[in-house]
């Protein structure tokens, strides 16, 4: 039983769930900045209010699993991404508290909505920055971080940040098409027509740039060329479909297409990163803690995750269907 592999799979699983679930939460938040009508903004926030907390929890799970199973990677990556992680935490903080605060604030709702939107935007940007920083590579010496905290502010991470921004906007638009009533459908479709192609374009630029500057990425493309090319193809098709989809369509399709974009993207990223956990210097096995720690996490995860998924699905089911126009208490 290769525990490090199992643990790494769990980290990948939790990160994937986070990106998909909080992706549309953050996406809706970003789109909030472009919605002038107050009632529509309320409607948008209502669509994500009941489940945002559970969604966000997956990133804590990923981070803490890293601490438990790959403490060396945790202790290298966090100082390496010190500034974007802290900015992301503050942005997520603003986004989180705004859910409760905007309800209490009659007169300053618009200000809180801006805070919500900016928080979502900054969080998305920072997450993309971190992803790009991972691809760019982190300076490691003797299993400790030995670079500068400013290394992250280079072209590849920045392009990745913008890519993820548009990506989350795609998820957000898809979610709104799924959940909102007629008033927001037009808005959501319009957003998809912008965000889907932008996501594809920046994703392409990021991939090309990564190959150019990071030999590790080049090597992975060399060895997994066909698989990666297929994934790129799938990505292009899905993005194209999203862009040209007519406005009146089945409600779940845009969201499903957005999800598939992310699944493809994550699969590609995983292909490039594996078997390193700190690309491209430290492998999974070098960064792993002892089997007693990995074992406990995996046993706990195996027992509890199905229960978590069950009642999370139950919570989504309770709030199924279209979000009521006048809020949850109307």
């Amino acid at each position: 039983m290769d525990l490090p592999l199992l643990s790494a799979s769990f980290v990948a699983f939790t990160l994937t769930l986070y990106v998909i679930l909080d992706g549309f939460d953050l996406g809706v938040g970003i789109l909030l900045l472009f919605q002038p009508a107050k009632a529509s903004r309320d409607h948008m926030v209502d669509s994500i209010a009941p489940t945002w907390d559970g969604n966000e929890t997956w990133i804590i799970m990923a981070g803490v699993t890293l601490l438990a199973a790959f403490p060396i990677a945790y202790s290298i990556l966090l100082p390496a991404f010190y500034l974007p992680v802290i900015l992301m935490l503050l942005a997520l903080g603003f986004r989180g508290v705004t859910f409760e605060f905007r309800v209490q604030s009659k007169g300053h709702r618009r200000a809180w909505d801006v805070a919500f939107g900016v928080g979502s935007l900054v969080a998305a940007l920072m997450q993309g920055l971190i992803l790009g920083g991972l691809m760019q590579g982190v300076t490691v010496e003797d299993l400790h971080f030995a670079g500068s905290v400013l290394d992250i502010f280079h072209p590849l991470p920045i392009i990745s940040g913008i890519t993820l921004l548009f990506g989350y906007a795609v998820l957000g638009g898809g979610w709104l098409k799924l959940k909102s009533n007629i008033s927001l459908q037009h808005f959501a479709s319009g957003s998809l027509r912008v965000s889907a192609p932008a996501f594809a374009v920046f994703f392409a630029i990021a991939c090309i740039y990564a190959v150019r500057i990071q030999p590790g990425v080049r090597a992975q493309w060399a060895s997994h060329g066909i698989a990666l090319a297929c994934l790129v193809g799938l990505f292009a098709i899905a993005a194209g479909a999203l862009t040209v989809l007519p406005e009146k369509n089945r409600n779940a399709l845009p969201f499903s297409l957005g999800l598939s974009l992310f699944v493809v993207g994550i699969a590609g990223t995983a292909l490039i990163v594996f078997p390193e956990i700190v690309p491209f210097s430290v492998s999974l096995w070098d960064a792993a803690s002892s089997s007693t720690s990995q074992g406990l996490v995996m046993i706990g995860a195996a027992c509890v995750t199905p229960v978590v998924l069950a009642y999370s699905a139950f919570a989504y089911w309770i709030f199924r269907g279209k979000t009521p126009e006048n809020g949850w208490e109307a």
Partner: protein
Amino acid sequence: MKLDPSILARIQFAFTVSFHIIFPTMSIGLASFLAVIEALWLKTKDPTYLQIYRFWLNIFAMGFGIGVVTGIVLSFEFGLGFARFAQMAGPAIGPLIALEVLTAFFLEAGFLGIMLFGFNRVGPKLHFFATCMVALGTLLSASWILSANSWMQTPAGVAIHGGQLTVVNWRHVLTNPSWPYRLPHMLTAAYLTASFMVAGVGAWYLLRGKHQDFARRTVALGTAFATVLIAGQVFIGDIVYGTMLKYQPSKMQAAEGFWEKQSQSPAPYYWFIIPDQKNQRNRFALGTPVLGSIWLTHSLKGRVEGLKNTPRELQPRMALVFYAFRIMYCLAMLMFAMGIASLWLRLRGTLFKSKWFLWMLVSMTPSGIIATLAGWYVAETGRQPWVIYGILRTVDAVSPVPAQALLSTLIAFVCVYAVFITAFLVFTFRIIRRGPVEAPTYAEASGSIKNAFRPYVLDSPKRLADNQFSERN
């Protein structure tokens, strides 16, 4: 100016964790309080209970949200500020926190949506179940994180080889020597916090002569819980004291203000000292004679061990530990006195009429929070210079991050958190000023209690016209 990264890292962590602990303390207490209230409402169908539930739900929701986001910060801050600690302790506390996320965070988060937004979507029993699950989640969360922190205080179950920790016995890690006592101490602190918050707001309404039913009910409940809880807390607190005296003698030595290896006999109980750490003496000390021996050695003549029993480089800062402890302990005594007073006033039948008592309750609304914070300062400053007691020192645990980065993010945290607490206080005071609203008896999951929601909604003219209760008023 040369900035010390280790000091900055400590200040940043101290700031973020102090800010954070305020909110889970409230959330743990209020969640259980809300569960009790909802149970009483389901049993008695008394609309006042629904009023109480809706009122405190609003405040609970805000506090819970801030608690969650400031908590996420901490789970990453181990690595951000103290990467070397994370690398070393990860194998031991990492799984504990991972299990906390799995069993507690997801549970709270999963059912919070139903608790806050699901009144119209689920029946009353399922809603009550959701409330209970959130309360259970907060309790489990406290258990796991107290286990992790207690492991840092009294590490057990690990072997060290060349700077790497391996867990050899999980039972020992989880149920390390101090956890079984620190956990009930923290939980009781949280329930006490909620009791005094609830009683304080109720007392405020009684003094203002408004919302009588609501106020009486909450003052009665709050003081009843507080009375029983503070007795338990004082009991458990002494046991925690004894445990920490055994495993971290330097902490308790610093807490009492004695320097000499053996104090005079009988020993006084110090209330006020001006300690001089450099010269290992107090420049000034004020205490009650004999009381030190009585409280600290349970005898009339016992001598207390002073901080000189610990080598200088391993001594915590006495000023911090001493005053944090005194604040916590004095508040405990005050709470106990309030408990006695509330029993006394019930016997006389004047619990709601005694103005001095009600004013005391109002001023003690935040007492639980202050006492809990002070207690945590005892725990964490008294653990210094260790971050894992006896294994890793704090100065050796810091991340390879430049001081400027630490300083700028510290400033960012202070600014952002200032916004959070200001908004929280402004909105809470607004909710209190507005007061609880009339709530009809819950019918079914049909939306008939829509009028009870969101006080501000009742202000809109359309609602007033629709609101069948405007005639009754």
